[in-house]
């Protein structure tokens, strides 16, 4: 078969010493970037572009960048689990059960399952890419504004239902998240909203600053208030590896997460986040003991982590087959390719087959490398929790401060970080879950923007959301989920009072 031929050719390219070296470098670098709170893969790739120009072969260049990209996916889950610091939007969901597991001394198990799940998902995702790339790409294109709206709305609903017990509090968090997202320039009307004349707010708040502040600094400030002496972050280390039981419980979660992530991740602009949400909600619904979710259920880590890795694999598809970048990191890779004279698009397979197959083959290699890299590190990371709070806390603050600062090189972002930290502290005191707020913040622009774009397209009629098949299906899903949630609420109320 042609595909087989291409793959074999690709492997012969990917397994040359220099490409193996660069895949490794990319993986290491990417993991480091993912672990360090604040620095994202897109920014890193941008910084490395001058170095990339020097590399003569485009294949090698992409191998390096791709390595950084999905290496950072692996690394991002580390901080989410250990420190409750989501490195990217797609890791927010991992924080929920991952951090709880770490607090219970099961950090090693969480990290291990995340690594294994990511590997399985990444590999299956790449296989899917190899076989189905063109079909998937066309599917991605069919997601116009109405479909994106419907999908984002489903995402919002799922985000709200994640929040513990109180629906009211969950909705408040969602509303606040949407409100924070509307600060800044509104792309549809061109007006600046809620900036009150502060010039730095013209571009709105940045996700990293918000998430680091609310999750990271909020946690630290709470810690400061609750103990007079500092102790280690977690005294129990427990088993460093996932047990057989963990593995058995998680395998279906990993598989399901992979499928969800692969398909949803193709959609440009939010695929990874939504796929992690869908996976979490799915696992919760299908679990034998759903009450464990939120307290450290391993499926709550395995599913979303697999989903976001599958999503990062499939986000390459629109780039390689259509020449459309789906997120900031892929956009950088796109830019580098163009400069090297390779135009990503449907002709990429024909014009530069070595690039296409070389990259895909290298992704297999990269995934294996990341697994080999990360599994032993799990033990090391788990030990990190032994470092006393007195040192960890200021170091985390310093890292996140620079992370925020480096986004736009303005000190205002650090002030925002502190502000969000105090806000996060308040939320904890008032028993709110910050997750839905952060997720609503990420999904907000997609919801609002797509809705207004759709209405412009349809001339004001809402029927556009129902006349298009994909959108209709998603709205239907939303209705089913909402009604289901309502029914659960009612049942709880009646059972407690009776």
């Amino acid at each position, binding site marked *: 078969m042609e595909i087989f031929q291409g793959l074999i050719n690709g492997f012969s390219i990917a397994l040359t010493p220099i490409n193996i070296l660069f895949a490794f470098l990319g993986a290491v670098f990417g993991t480091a970037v993912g672990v360090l709170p604040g620095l994202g893969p897109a920014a890193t790739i941008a910084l490395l572009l001058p170095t990339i120009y020097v590399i003569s072969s485009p294949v090698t260049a992409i191998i390096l960048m791709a390595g950084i990209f999905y290496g950072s996916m692996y690394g991002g889950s580390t901080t989410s689990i250990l420190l409750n610091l989501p490195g990217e939007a797609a890791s927010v969901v991992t924080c929920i059960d991952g951090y709880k597991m770490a607090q219970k001394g099961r950090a090693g198990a969480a990290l291990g399952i995340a690594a294994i799940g990511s590997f399985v998902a990444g590999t299956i995702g790449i296989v899917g890419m190899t076989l189905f790339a063109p079909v998937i790409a066309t599917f991605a294109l069919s997601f116009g504004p109405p479909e994106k709206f419907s999908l984002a709305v489903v995402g919002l609903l799922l985000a709200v239902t994640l929040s513990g017990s109180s629906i009211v509090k969950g909705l408040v968090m969602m509303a606040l998240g949407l409100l924070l997202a509307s600060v800044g320039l509104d792309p549809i009307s061109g007006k600046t909203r809620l900036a009150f004349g502060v010039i730095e707010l013209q571009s709105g708040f940045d996700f990293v600053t918000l998430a680091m502040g609310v999750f990271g600094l909020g946690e630290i400030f709470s810690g400061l208030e609750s103990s007079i002496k500092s102790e280690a972050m977690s005294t129990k280390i427990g088993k460093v590896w996932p047990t057989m039981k963990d593995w058995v419980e998680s395998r279906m979660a990993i598989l399901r997460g992979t499928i969800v992530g692969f398909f949803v991740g193709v959609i*440009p602009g939010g695929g990874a986040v939504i796929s992690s949400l869908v996976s979490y909600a799915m696992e919760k619904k299908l679990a034998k003991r759903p009450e464990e979710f939120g307290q450290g259920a391993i499926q709550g880590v395995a599913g979303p982590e697999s989903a976001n890795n599958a999503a990062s694999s499939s986000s390459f598809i629109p780039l390689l087959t259509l020449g459309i*970048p789906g997120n900031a990191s892929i956009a950088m890779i796109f830019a580098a390719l163009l400069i*090297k*004279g390779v135009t990503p698009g449907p002709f990429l397979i024909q014009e530069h087959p070595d690039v296409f197959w070389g990259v895909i083959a290298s992704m297999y290699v990269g995934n294996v490398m990341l697994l080999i890299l990360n599994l032993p590190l799990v033990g090391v990371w788990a030990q990190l929790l032994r470092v006393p709070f007195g040192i960890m806390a200021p170091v985390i603050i310093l890292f996140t401060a620079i992370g925020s600062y480096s986004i736009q090189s303005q000190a205002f972002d650090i002030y925002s970080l502190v502000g969000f930290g105090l806000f996060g502290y308040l939320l904890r005191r008032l028993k709110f879950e910050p997750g839905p707020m952060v997720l609503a913040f990420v999904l907000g622009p997609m919801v609002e923007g797509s809705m207004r774009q759709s209405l412009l397209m349809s001339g004001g009629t809402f029927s556009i959301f129902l006349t298009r098949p994909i959108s209709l299906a998603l709205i239907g899903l939303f209705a089913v989920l909402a009604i289901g949630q309502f029914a659960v609420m009612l049942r709880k109320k009646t059972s407690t009072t009776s």
Partner: protein
Amino acid sequence: MKRLFALMVAAFFVFAALPVASMAQDAYPAKPITAVVPMAAGGSSDLLARAVEKFWTKYSKQPLVVVNKPGGGGVVGTEGVVRSKPDGYTLYLGYGSGHDVVMPSLQKMPYDPLKDLIAVARLSIHSVVIVTGANSPFNSVKDIIAWSKKEGKPVTTAVSVKAGAVDIALTAFGKAAGVNIVTVPFQGGAEATTALAGGHLMIGGGHPSEIIPHIKAGRFKALAVVTPERDATLPNVPTLKEEGINVYTWGSIKGLAAPAGTPKEVVGYLEGTVKKICDDPEFKTTMNNLFQPIMYQGSEDFAKFMKQATADYAKLIKDLDIKIE
């Protein structure tokens, strides 16, 4: 013991301040030059900047460092440059974009792009191209006009940023041709062209670097360019004027600028370096790969051009009564 220790600490502080204090006053440029691109990474301005960055070290002893500062439609990053020290180490790459030449006529700006910035050199002009999907019934601009007159329904149009160069060009076309154009803004050119590629809108506008890959892929048809003359990267595409519609815009101009007050020698040096880069044959190849035409202009000519372009846009906006709602 304590005193020795205190001495060590003091020494450390001195040591820490050293790397900063040792900035000797060498001839310009003595340290890397920052080029701020107030747009998202991967966009057409960013691609141009990266290409320039790549070739800069060939002609200058200090590298050019490209920094993305997107936000506020370009205003945030540009303002940062305006307020920086005019010593030639902070420059603005992308001068002449929508927020420089179009926005002043539409809303209040925190700075004056013509007075607060010095035009150093022009690199390129990204014209606005009107495109439609390959399966669309439209084959020329005249088809759009005819359809609109017959059906009386609005023509949905994908554009990049609200009130940006693309939006203005398409809106102007609509008003001049009597077509009810509804522009649907997206977050940047890439998103807009993707939506159009998916067939979700009837027509769209974009720059050649965004459009041509799709044309080559057989997904788009280019109907017209809005610049007064044909674009070098799309020689077979007629201008709007040729199609009978007397509207033109300068598209999105891309140049290098420095904050007002930058010394003349510095501007001269930068202008010279840019000229050398634009003459470099490898740079020409790279720009071809990016589908961006090289249109060099020196500092004085560029400054005059910017004034002209701003005035042209102002007149267009006034004549056709375009405003932000």
